[in-house]
């Protein structure tokens, strides 16, 4: 082995490739592939409905049908709409935002498994996988928001300056959800069982995020309401409803929601990066 040792000493340009790249270099490698990051979600979406008759119409039809189902069940049937002026918009807003969140977080547990063969044949910063998955879900969330706007106009809401604040709110939502996606991507890689367990936990979050009803119309218990207020998804949904329906939303949500987004995004990214090398390996 003496030859090996010597050649290592004489060659300064040899770099370890089986060690985790330092954070700065990692981010540099990610930025160098910005075009790839943008191309992946679009190609994923291109093939998603390829085998169907209606094809890409499903990107619009899917949120429409989902909205329809919830409107029929929770509107006239169960009358959960107390305390809400424009219940259709209220409900569909919540469903769309929550759907974006749950799809990214639930899908995260399968992200690394799904891309195993890709990772075993090509090197790229692995963070691209959860990021692109989140971006893909975000793109699919946008037609859902278009449906919401259409319903809003159809039910007599008139456009206001508050609508202009929708894009920044949605960007904050994207950052928060992507951070969560980083976390479940690594967790799902460590515990594949999470794939079965997480949807139930997320479903609990569905009822705790005020998607279907206005919590304040059902309880006046302060601590119960605080639980809702501290929930980042509830905050995001409230902000979107504020922009669309002028529903009151606490001012501090404007600080709390971006705060949550920053913490989850940075924390989630770092958490994901720390296991960078392990993702391609068989578990």
């Amino acid at each position, binding site marked *: 082995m003496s030859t090996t040792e010597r050649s290592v000493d004489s*060659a300064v340009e040899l770099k370890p*490739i089986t060690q985790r790249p330092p954070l700065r270099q990692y981010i540099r490698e990610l930025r160098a592939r910005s*075009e790839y990051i943008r191309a992946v979600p679009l190609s994923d979406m*291109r*093939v998603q409905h390829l085998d169907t008759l209606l094809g890409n119409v499903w990107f619009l039809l899917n949120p429409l049908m989902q909205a329809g189902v919830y409107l029929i069940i929770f509107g006239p049937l169960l009358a959960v709409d107390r305390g809400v002026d424009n219940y259709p918009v209220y409900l569909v807003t919540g469903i769309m935002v929550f759907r974006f969140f749950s799809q990214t977080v639930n899908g995260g547990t399968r992200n690394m498994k799904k891309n195993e063969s890709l990772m075993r044949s*090509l090197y790229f910063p692995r963070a691209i996988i959860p990021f692109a998955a989140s971006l893909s879900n975000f793109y699919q969330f946008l037609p859902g928001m278009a449906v919401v706007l259409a319903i809003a106009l159809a039910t007599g809401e008139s456009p206001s300056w508050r609508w202009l604040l929708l894009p920044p709110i949605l960007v904050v939502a994207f950052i928060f959800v992507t951070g969560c996606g980083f976390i479940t991507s690594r967790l799902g890689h460590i515990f594949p069982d999470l794939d079965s367990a997480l949807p139930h936990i997320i479903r609990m979050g569905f009822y705790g995020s005020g998607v279907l009803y206005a919590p304040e119309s059902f309880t006046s218990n302060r601590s119960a309401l605080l639980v809702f207020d501290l929930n980042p998804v509830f905050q995001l949904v409230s902000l979107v409803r504020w922009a669309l329906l002028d529903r009151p939303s606490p001012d501090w949500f404007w600080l709390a929601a971006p705060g949550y987004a920053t913490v989850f995004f940075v924390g989630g990214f770092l958490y994901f990066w720390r296991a960078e090398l392990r993702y391609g390996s068989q578990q």
Partner: protein
Amino acid sequence: MIDTTSNDYADEDAGDDDDDTEDLVPTLVARNVHVRYNSHADRDPSTSLLRMRRKNVPRGSRAEVHAVRGVSLTLHQGESIGIVGSNGSGKSTLVTALSGLIELSEGEVLATSRPALLGVGAALRPKLSGRRNIMLGLLALGLSRAEVNNRMKAIIKFSGLGDAIDRPMATYSSGMRARLAFTIATEVAPDILIIDEALAVGDRDFRARAANRLQEIRDAAGSMIVISHNLSEVASMCNRVIWLEDGEVVQDGEADTVLANYESANPSPKKAEKRMKRRAMRRRIRAREREKALEWAIENVDGDIAIPPDSTAPSGPAASEQAADPAPRPSDGGVA
């Protein structure tokens, strides 16, 4: 390990002197590489659970697979190393590790740049067209969209896929898929290229193109690691060969020596193949003889004594073996 010297220049090989590696610039150095992973191991379904408990046979559970066990090697500029070994000897796992794509259990790999790995199962997107796969693959390798668009025509021409380029890759044959993967992986000339059986499925035209491009890469001082079961291919491409068995290096040295040893340890399956062919031929000849005899017997059913017309012609196993031997043997390009 019989010979671990990484020096393939025989004329300089006068002892293990210090100036051996002076003009040999290492591009990849692997030290004591180990890869272990856990896998599910099923129980033998033919033993009942009850009997298993009685006999204390281990039940199906997770078992550790130690795929690569302490491999060290140095690859130099302009050098091509061949890796040979039986199925399951850890060749593919080793090169995935050398490419920095999986976590090592022990050891380390140093390289001047990340090797490009080219395998049979190169992960392309089956539902996307060849053209879009080229775009995505090259973007992932760090090219810009504009660069890819500029080169797209030449790339498609090199791939030789023609009109198929706009069909989903799922419709491609394995040879066409190999063409596409090879085109993408070598478009950005890598300093280090690792080929894992990726040329085996290509046709002659593709092999010629691939050989040309590989020569270009080598001329540009790139280095290569080639896994192949085609020993003549290894012999023609590589000056050095590593023989791997059970995740360990059996021998590392000059191509001719290692290949000869590998062959004598693993007698060419072609010999067995020949034996099988000879046996089949013998059976066919015997069947033909029987048929002839029967035909003759039917024709002469009215006669009283049945004598085969060609009773003087040689018959029996010894003769048919003679007849079978000069039979044409297709696809005999092996290393005798």
